[in-house]
Each structure stands twice: as structure tokens, then as C-alpha cells.
């Protein structure tokens, strides 16, 4: 394959472009916006590369294919922190921890000292916890911007503006449609699952790894970012509404307060909402429609599964094979 066009410059599109460029392909990426930003749902991601924790509810391929993600992003030049995931619960919900440990492979049990040794700022707050090794996190916005800049440097052409891809500048070669929820016009079984997130800034608290707070009503994860920032995520509602809701803010902030009361003094930097593209089994998919390969359905696993999905998409285009995530022919 000599030439290819990628529709969409979110995490899926950039990963596909990177895989194509790595094979010496001449790539054009079309996206209405000139840079990564709030228009795309990758912008709102947590950036956890946590295949084992996700396996609590996700299907087996998520755990298996997600394991490649940390290495892949690091190889692209992203800053990947590999410190595992800490899982804790409020005192009266501690049986949630047992259930989680049963369903997630490789959990290491911690007592109060163990929690404090990993995250000194949580000392005395939790008398037990779980450490899931082999998991990592990154800053998704920095990763998107960094990957895009690197691809531009390597000669990948980015074309912005509404109508990009139509008329005279129409796509050349094989087309990879990575438009996320916007691809509903060709994917009838794609739906949006609403998620909301909050970013706080606190000079008082330090966390060195993502922390998951298990709670029967308000599960929460907190991902530390540079500059004293903390990303709180994420709600999950069967809706395509994109409004930021008071309810989600209340839930996320209350849960953060339960994790550590110092969050009450933090600065509220951002509150975002978007809809994740998902298929009925919440697993990503490739589909062939004529000369186009549809790459979609990353749900809440964009940064985790886009590398594996992109590799499979490019492989299918190159040798005509039908990789694991490729559906039967939809041409």
C-alpha cells in the first residue's frame, strides 16, 4: 500500500497514521479541526493504560490487547509512567475490594502501611488496598499533540477544515475511517456512551499513580498529571447528551473528597463531557466497506486499545487478512 487517507485525527486516527507511516506509506489525515482539542472525545480521556483493572467488567480481548499499549506509546515518544494502579475503598465497602481482587488478575493485597508506602498522602486513610502492577498512565493531551507533531515531522500531511476529504481534495488510496461517533452515518450499530470528567489542581496533594476508588454508587478514578493536576473520571451513562451535569460534578467531586478531604481545597480547573463511540458489546471493531476500513468503537479504551486496533487495521489493508477485530465483510 503506497497511499492512504485517514479520516479523523483523534486517538484512533493518529494511531492508524503512525502505523501506516511506519510502513513507509504516504499518509494524509483529514480532520475538520486543525489540532487535537475538545471537539474529539480522546481529549477527555483519562490516559490510564490499565488493561487488568478494565478486565473487571470488560471482555477478555481488552485485557490481552491492552497489554501492548504502554510499550507502543513509549515507542512513539510519549511519556509513559509505569507505576501500576492503586485500588482502595471506603471502609464499609471493603468487600468490593475482595470482589475486585477475584476478578482482576495479579492484584497484590496491601495493608495500611502498604498503601502509605505507595502513596504517602493517603497514609492513614485506607486500612487496605490493592496494587495492580504492570499498568501505566500517560497524559492523553500531551500524547496526542506529541504524536501528531512527530507524524507531521515525518511527512504525514494533515488537512483541516470542514469539507476536508470532499471535492477536489478527495481521499486517495485506502481510506481509514476513524471518525468516532461522527461515523454513525455509516455504522448503524454505533452508539454514544456519555462520560464526564473533572480536572482539579492541588498543591497539597501528590499521587504518583492512578488511584481507583471502588464504590457501589460512585466509582471514581483519579489520574495525576504534571503541574499538580488531577483528572477525575469518569461517569458512564447510556446517553448521547453532551451537557455537563451537576449530578456528575457532585458525584465525581464527592468521591474525590472521600478519597482525600484536601481535594475540597483544590482549584476546579475543568469539567468536560462527551460521548464515547461504542458497539453493542463495547469492543472495538474493524469493518471493510469497499475501499474503506472503518476503525471504531473504542468506547472507554481509546488510548488502551487504539494501538492494537490500528495495527490490525493496517495489517488487514496490507495483506487482505481478516484480523481478530475485523467483522465479516460489510461491503
Amino acid at each position: 500500500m503506497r497511499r492512504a487517507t485517514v479520516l479523523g485525527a483523534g486517538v484512533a486516527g493518529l494511531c492508524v497514521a503512525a502505523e501506516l507511516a511506519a510502513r513507509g506509506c504516504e499518509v494524509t489525515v483529514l480532520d475538520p479541526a486543525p489540532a487535537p482539542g475538545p471537539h474529539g472525545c480522546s481529549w477527555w480521556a483519562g490516559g490510564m493504560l490499565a488493561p487488568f483493572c478494565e478486565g473487571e467488567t470488560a471482555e477478555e480481548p481488552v485485557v490481552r490487547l491492552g497489554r501492548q499499549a504502554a510499550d507502543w506509546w513509549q515507542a512513539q515518544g510519549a511519556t509513559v509512567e509505569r507505576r501500576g494502579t492503586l485500588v482502595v475503598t471506603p471502609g464499609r465497602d471493603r468487600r468490593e475490594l475482595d470482589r475486585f481482587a477475584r476478578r482482576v488478575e495479579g492484584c497484590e493485597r496491601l495493608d495500611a502501611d502498604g498503601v502509605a508506602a505507595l502513596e504517602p498522602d493517603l497514609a492513614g486513610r485506607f486500612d487496605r488496598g490493592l496494587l495492580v502492577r504492570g499498568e501505566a498512565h500517560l497524559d492523553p493531551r500531551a500524547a496526542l499533540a506529541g504524536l501528531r507533531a512527530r507524524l507531521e515531522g515525518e511527512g504525514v500531511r494533515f488537512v483541516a477544515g470542514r469539507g476536508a476529504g470532499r471535492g477536489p481534495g478527495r481521499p486517495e488510496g485506502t481510506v481509514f475511517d476513524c471518525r468516532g461517533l461522527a461515523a454513525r452515518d455509516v455504522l448503524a450499530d454505533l452508539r454514544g456512551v456519555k462520560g464526564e470528567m473533572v480536572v482539579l489542581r492541588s498543591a497539597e496533594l501528590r499521587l504518583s499513580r492512578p488511584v481507583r476508588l471502588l464504590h457501589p454508587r460512585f466509582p471514581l478514578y483519579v489520574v495525576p498529571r504534571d503541574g499538580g493536576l488531577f483528572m477525575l473520571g469518569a461517569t458512564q451513562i447510556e446517553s448521547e447528551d453532551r451537557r455537563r451535569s451537576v449530578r456528575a460534578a457532585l458525584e465525581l467531586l464527592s468521591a474525590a473528597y472521600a478519597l482525600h478531604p484536601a481535594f475540597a481545597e483544590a482549584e476546579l480547573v475543568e469539567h468536560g463531557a462527551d460521548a464515547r463511540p461504542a458497539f453493542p458489546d463495547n469492543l472495538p471493531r474493524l469493518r471493510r466497506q469497499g475501499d474503506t476500513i472503518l476503525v471504531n468503537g473504542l468506547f472507554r479504551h481509546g488510548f488502551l486499545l487504539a494501538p492494537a486496533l490500528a495495527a490490525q487495521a493496517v495489517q488487514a489493508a496490507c495483506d487482505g487478512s481478516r484480523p481478530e477485530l475485523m467483522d465479516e465483510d460489510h461491503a
Partner: protein
Amino acid sequence: MEVYGTAVASRLMLGTAQYPSPQVLAEAFRRSGAGIATVSVRRESGGEKAGAAFWELARGLGVAILPNTAGCHSVKEAVTTAHMARELFDTPWIKLEVIGHADTLQPDPFGLVEAARILVEDGFQVFPYTTEDVVLADRLLSAGCEVLMPWGAPIGTGLGLTNVYGLRTLRAQFPDVPMVVDAGLGLPSQAAQAMEMGFDAVLLNTAVAKAGDPAAMADGFARAVEAGRLAFEADPMEPRDMAAPSTPVIGKAFLE
């Protein structure tokens, strides 16, 4: 069993929240044989039909839809949500929840009766989520409810039937009213227990949705509900203290 003049094929009803994916939800329904699906209107909405994709999916389950007012803490909220539900699903059925206590999600008995009265007057067929209180049950029936949904335990706890005496009394006081034990069930044995006591059906959600294998758990509950109902209809024996051999011992050659 019949509710509001409609025959319901299965005595198991399932909620549609908290499943790992819509596909797992559909598979759980298939294995459960459930005849009614409850759908939360308030939480999945957001106006402008933002939840349409999920509601379409619920309709696609091929079972009757019982919309609910989950998450409503006042009469006004519950009534508004009920009207929204009637428009969305084109059904007069509404599972009425008016929550009175944030921690236990216990029904607000006063608000429940008031909301039920308003909705019945508006032409709704109300399925009230209630406690096992017989006085409250009486008031709900007077308000025009023809079905009662007493809790087994607080929503999502999986504690089973925490007040067996209360539930037994309720069942005995209103033997002809269809009653569905709703909420608090965690295991099939607890569903079987409710059915053995003569309740007409059970409704659950978390126990199936949050199981490691929701479809298998749905199957387990379906069998338990059937077993419990069979036992009730078979008129079970009374427990007694003195052992009674099932084969007569008199006439045997030796009795040690």
C-alpha cells in the same frame, strides 16, 4: 400472572442498568426468559432524546417495558418523570419510586402515596416500590394501585429478605393483590424463598448485572423463581419437630 389486565409470561422481571455492555444485557435477558424489563428514564435521559439509542435497545429485547422513576426524591420529580416515560415508551405502566432516604434509598411512604394518587388520576397504571408496611400497602391500594412491589432489602444490597415476618404478614393481608418482591435480592435462593412465600414475581437488577457472568446468574434466578413458584403451588408440608419416617417401621422384623 396478570397485572392491570395484562398477562405476563414470566415471574422474573429484570432491570437494565449496570451491565458490562448492551450485548451482555441482551444475553442475560435471553437466558432469564424475563417477561418485563424495567428501564430508568431519569438517569439515562438529558433531554432531546439523548438516550434514544439505549431505549431502542431496550425495546429490542422483545419484552414488555416497565419504565421507572429511579432516582426521584420528590413527588414532583416522580410525576414529571412518569409523564416523560409515558411519552417515550407509549405505556401507561410506571414503576413508581420516590426515595426518602439517601443512604438506604428507602421509599418515602408519604410522597409515594401522594404521587401514586396523582398518577392514577392521570390515567397511569402504577407499580409502587414500597416497604413491607401493611398500612402503607393499604393506602397505596386505596390510591388506586393494583400491584405492590415491596422491597426485600434496600436497593443494590443483595441482603435478601431482611424482614420475613413483615413480608409474610403483607402477603397474608392482601392475598389477591399481585405482589412483586423488588430490590435487595442477591442470590437465586432468596428469590426462591420469596416465591415459596407466595409472592407473584420478583424484580432484580444488580444481582445479575454485577455478577461475574450475568447471563449465567440470570439463568440461575430463572430456575430459582420457577422452583419457588412450583413449591408454593404444590402446597408444601409444614415443618415439625418429631421425626416421621417416610416408610412405616411397624411390622419390620427388628426395630433397634
